[in-house]
């Protein structure tokens, strides 16, 4: 009798297990069918979800390392300190608080770059072209606005270039520093090879001039600087120095026209030629 009961229990357990397996299989097959849909939903969500502050900092740091690897930092601690002080003064009037860090890249090309997380770079070639501190304040203000308003990040997300999309796909399997490095590659590729929309550049010019003016600088510093660059760019010998800047920004004429119409342009503030010259060892 006992043997019969044990036998019946074993058979029922086996059949129950068989039933469970069938159910599991059915669930799995349903999951398989719906997976592409959830993938697409995840992708769409990623497209519109901004980086978290931690992600933004990690991506910014990894991008800054690449930037420094490409150009190097100018070996002039006094100038680096001075640019940090001017930039930090202007950044007090930014639309978003970030841990702002400013660096002078050791290259003759003319340009300035904003990376995620508050890393701002200006080239030695740009400083050489400037004649006073208000011009530096305006140029740094332009970059501060790009970083504060997450211009690069939103541009990348809205455009979703194929390279960026593939990086995102790979990034799904990566974590932490590896993930930040992958994003950094895409950030610099976009920074150097594609231009932000005209409206974002106009916004950066407007807000850069506004921040400098609110800080107490002459509001026309950025406009003056762009006019200087426009003259220097007319010299055929200098064309190579402006290649990067002009490939990613509106023309100097367009920027001059837009900035000339801004109210901040009429704000009379400090230009600080003497302090600028002293800081740069002129």
């Amino acid at each position, binding site marked *: 009798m006992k043997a019969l009961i044990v036998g019946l229990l074993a058979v029922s357990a086996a059949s129950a297990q068989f039933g469970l397996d069938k159910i599991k299989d059915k669930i799995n097959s349903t999951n398989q069918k719906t997976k592409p849909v959830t993938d697409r939903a995840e992708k769409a969500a990623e497209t519109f979800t901004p980086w978290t502050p931690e992600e933004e900092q990690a991506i910014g740091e990894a991008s800054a390392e690449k930037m420094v*690897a*490409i150009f190097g*930092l100018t070996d002039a601690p006094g100038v680096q300190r001075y640019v940090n002080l001017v930039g930090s003064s202007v950044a007090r009037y930014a639309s978003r608080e970030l841990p702002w860090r400013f660096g002078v890249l050791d290259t*003759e090309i003319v340009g300035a770059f904003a990376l995620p997380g508050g890393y701002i770079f200006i080239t030695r070639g740009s400083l*050489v072209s400037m004649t006073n501190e208000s011009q530096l304040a305006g140029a740094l203000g332009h970059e501060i606005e790009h970083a504060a308003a997450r211009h690069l990040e939103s541009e990348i997300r809205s455009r979703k270039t194929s390279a960026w999309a593939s990086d995102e796909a790979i990034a799904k399997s990566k974590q932490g520093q590896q993930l930040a490095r992958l994003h950094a590659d895409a950030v610099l590729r976009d920074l*150097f090879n594609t231009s932000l929309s005209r409206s974002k550049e106009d916004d950066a010019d407007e807000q850069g001039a506004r921040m400098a003016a609110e800080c107490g600088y002459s509001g026309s510093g950025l406009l003056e600087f762009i006019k200087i660059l426009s003259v220097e760019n007319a010299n055929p010998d200098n064309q190579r120095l402006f290649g*990067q800047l002009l490939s990613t920004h509106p023309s100097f004429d367009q920027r001059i026209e837009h900035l000339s119409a801004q109210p901040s342009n009429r704000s009379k503030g*400090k230009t600080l030629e003497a302090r600028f010259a002293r800081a740069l060892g*002129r």
Partner: protein
Amino acid sequence: MRTVVLCWPMLFMLAFLASAQQPPRTAAQDDKNKKQQDSPPPDQQPKPLFGGKIPARSSQNTKESATLGFNGIDPSGKVDKKVLAANPKAADAEKVRNMDANRPAPADVMAFAKEGGLKSK
């Protein structure tokens, strides 16, 4: 013959007087002449790092040559794709960490703004 013998002391005297009239060479003049020999002509002298007009010399001449040959910049002035693909080294990461460490304190920013007659927020 006697006339010739008598002339010799006179000749010595004249030679002595002539040499005495020349101004003595001072050590300072020697230094100045040496500096003039050592320093390159004005057109070959290095320009200040941030002075003058573009292009300015590089501070380290490692990323660029001193002769406007931009390593990593293509003929159109854009950053070369190969350079873009390069991975940063530990030294680059350290420089970025230093950027973070060298951020000016708020009090320093305030003092800097005050010194320049800017607004204190």
